């Protein structure tokens, strides 16, 4: 591939871009230049500002400061339809697809050209041509709901490529939905795009992929550009990691007291558990897992690998396909949610705003719903007793739960999360199933939450914790298991492993298992 003059043409130049949300500056004077035929990786931890930056380039957000140029000309990119017509395409992490429509129909929708007719034959041919050129085959007449995540991503890529104006494609964490095999194919496709003169912006936090394909790397931290390097300069794994997290060393786990396991009966025993998803297709199969009282087991994995469904099944909200679940020695495989609640199982969902908030009910009423004991008074709940106990609860103060009479639907996301956590741990559960407890919380509350979980653990609660934050898992878990490729790997001792190894298992599974 010869380096022609055309290929060095500057596609995009962003100067001193700023984006604020209220008092919070999400992107602070970031510069970015992208050439034709260049793969530029944007690296950073969660919350570093990668997505915000890309959404400005794709026209979702209007920058609060700075300038944008496409091919030397100043441009405005908002709204996205304008960005598209200027040649910017984006492949989102949460796909913008309509599951009930076919691949072809989804692609047809995204084409901005006017016209009444669909002309399926012509479009199908166009899709076939592009698919072949970039090695991203997908049946244009299949319904999107029939496709797996990797194939859906191909549809998103096709959407960008079918649009003739596209010169630059932004990928938002593209490999998080791909299997290792697919990752290889994906990287090959990126090379092809580069060869054809497309500019590629790749948002990711996976350093190995960056090393494998990027021409240039920009590292963002707390909204600032902290580091930039390119292939012809130094570009090592250690360097990039230390720039991402701000210090060369990984944060060490806080002091964790060893819990003496008095109780010999496991709090949770799962044997050969298999679960189907909503479309009745196997999601997880052959799971074995034991959690003893006073043990905190963390679940790592790329989201969408069955985390939510696993917790729902353990809690009795979802049917078991095969296998058995025992709680404190008693078989609850076929039991209801109520039987589990009686045995001291508590569940904290990953989406409390939609799944836990009941409009019209106050915090007090939510506390009683699960968690606080529903003291009786005649046919009614003894609300004054509940209120007294609520006011004297330590967790309520620690987690700064809002006043008892506030309607929960008026609370912010963080406050809902606080309430949900408070009621989950108020009664010291035997088994706590908890998903993403620190999502939407500030650092201080996150730390407080982690302390509370460790406190529960010392009181003998068995905890199954799902988190997308590997650092958090390493800090507080006794053992870590990984959900990947329809299976559960592990448990691993955090002392014997490191986040890189976990990341590898998250993607490819564990051959030794």
């Amino acid at each position, binding site marked *: 591939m010869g380096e022609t003059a055309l290929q060095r043409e500057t596609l995009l130049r962003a100067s001193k871009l700023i984006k604020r949300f209220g008092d919070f500056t999400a992107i602070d004077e970031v510069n970015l230049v992208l050439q034709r035929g260049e793969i530029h990786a944007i690296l950073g931890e969660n919350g570093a500002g990668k997505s915000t930056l890309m959404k400005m380039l794709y026209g979702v957000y209007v920058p609060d400061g700075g300038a944008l140029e496409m091919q030397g000309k100043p441009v405005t990119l908002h709204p996205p339809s304008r960005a598209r017509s200027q040649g910017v395409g984006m492949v989102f992490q949460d796909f913008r697809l*309509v599951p009930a429509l076919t691949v072809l129909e989804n692609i*047809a*929708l995204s084409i901005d050209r006017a016209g*009444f*007719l*669909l002309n399926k034959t012509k479009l199908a041919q166009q899709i076939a041509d592009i698919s072949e050129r970039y090695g991203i085959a997908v049946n244009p007449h299949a319904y999107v709901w029939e496709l797996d995540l990797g194939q859906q991503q191909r549809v998103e890529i096709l959407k960008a490529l079918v649009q003739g104006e596209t010169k630059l494609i932004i990928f938002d964490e593209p490999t998080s939905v791909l299997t290792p095999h697919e990752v290889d194919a994906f990287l090959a496709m990126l090379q092809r795009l580069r060869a054809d003169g497309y500019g590629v912006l790749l948002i990711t936090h996976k350093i190995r992929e960056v090393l494998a394909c990027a021409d240039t790397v920009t590292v963002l931290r707390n909204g600032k550009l902290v580091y930039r390097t390119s292939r012809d300069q130094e570009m090592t794994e250690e360097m990039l990691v230390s720039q991402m997290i701000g210090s060369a060393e990984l944060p060490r786990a806080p002091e964790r007291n060893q819990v003496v396991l008095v109780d010999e009966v496991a709090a949770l025993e799962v044997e050969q558990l298999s679960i189907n998803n909503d479309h009745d297709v196997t999601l997880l199969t052959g799971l074995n897992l034991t959690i003893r009282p006073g043990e905190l087991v963390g679940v790592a994995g790329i989201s969408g690998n069955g985390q939510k469904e696993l917790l729902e099944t353990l809690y009795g909200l979802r049917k078991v396909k095969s296998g058995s679940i025992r709680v404190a020695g008693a078989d609850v495989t076929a039991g209801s949610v109520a039987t589990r609640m009686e045995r001291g199982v508590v569940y904290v969902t990953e989406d409390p705003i939609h799944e836990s908030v009941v409009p019209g009910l106050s915090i007090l009423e939510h506390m009683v719903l699960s968690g606080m004991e529903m003291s009786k008074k005649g046919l009614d709940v003894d609300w004054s007793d509940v209120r007294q106990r609520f006011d004297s609860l330590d967790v309520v103060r620690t987690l700064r739960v809002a006043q008892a009479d506030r309607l929960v639907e008026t609370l912010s996301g963080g406050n809902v999360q606080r309430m949900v956590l408070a009621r989950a741990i108020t009664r010291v559960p035997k088994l706590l199933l908890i998903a993403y407890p620190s999502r939407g919380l500030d650092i201080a509350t996150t730390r407080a939450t982690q302390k509370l979980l460790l406190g529960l653990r010392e009181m003998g609660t068995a905890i199954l914790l799902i988190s997308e934050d590997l650092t958090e898992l390493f800090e507080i878990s006794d053992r870590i298991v990984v959900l990947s490729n329809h299976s559960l790997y592990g448990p691993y001792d955090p002392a014997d492993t490191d986040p890189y190894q976990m990341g590898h298992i998250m993607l490819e599974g564990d051959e030794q298992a």
Partner: protein
Amino acid sequence: MIVEILTGAIRAGTSVLFASLGEVVAQRAGVINLGTEGSMLGGAFVAFAVTYQTGSPWIGLLAGGLAGLLFALIHAFLVIQRRANQLAVGLTIIFLAQGLTAFMGQDYVDKQINGLNPIAIPVLSDIPFIGPVFFNHDILTYLVFLLVPLIWWFLFYSKPGVLLRATGEREEVVFSLGKSPTLIRYLAVSFGGLMAGLGGAQLSIAFTHTWVENMTQGRGIIAVALVIFAAWLPTRAMLGAYLFGGAQALQLALQGRGLEVSPFLLFMLPYLLTLVVLFIVERRKVSSMPESLRKVFEGERGGG
């Protein structure tokens, strides 16, 4: 007798088919309109009254369609703009239409009009069996025969059609494409109302040539239910509507022969039939119901 029942099925089912086709489009965009019953009733009355006053069934037909559209616009405004409960609004519109038409229609009961009469299509109508069943109807029946493939083609082979379906499934995708789901829904609901109005008009000025208080008798509700049975496909809506028509025709044929069955049991037939077909299709494992509708039925957060 078979020819009589089949012909009767088409005569009686056409008004329902109009309304069903309109609802296919509206529900594909994510709005369910029980007010279809109200639109039909309004269309039936206005078409009759205007035909009586002007002497022209064509002007009557137009007015009937517009009346249906007007009722649908009330629904669209409250549901799309004010986010009111779709099912409750639809029911209220039925109520409103029943009141309005009963009120304004009292002077028109027992009046005579020159409505739309069956037109035998030359040559085709002479074919034995098929001829009388399919080719000896009023012009609206022929129109609806054409509309079935036309709407099917629109939904699956035109860009606006795909956009409309996308609106009923994932409005955020449509929004991210820079299109307005609100506008698309308004258009779809209006079309549904227009079709229901035409269906009502067919009932009063082409099928029966009379105006009777509350003459639609739940046909609009059946039309809505049949759309679910039809899995939101125009072709299957046709099957459903003429199945309904068949039940009606059977009832008339049996009555005409003085059979010893209570007419009331026969009157129930179309409603029971609708329930039975719904029962059969709703047991399907994978439902093809548009996602927005599922939210209406299952309640985004309950019934409030």
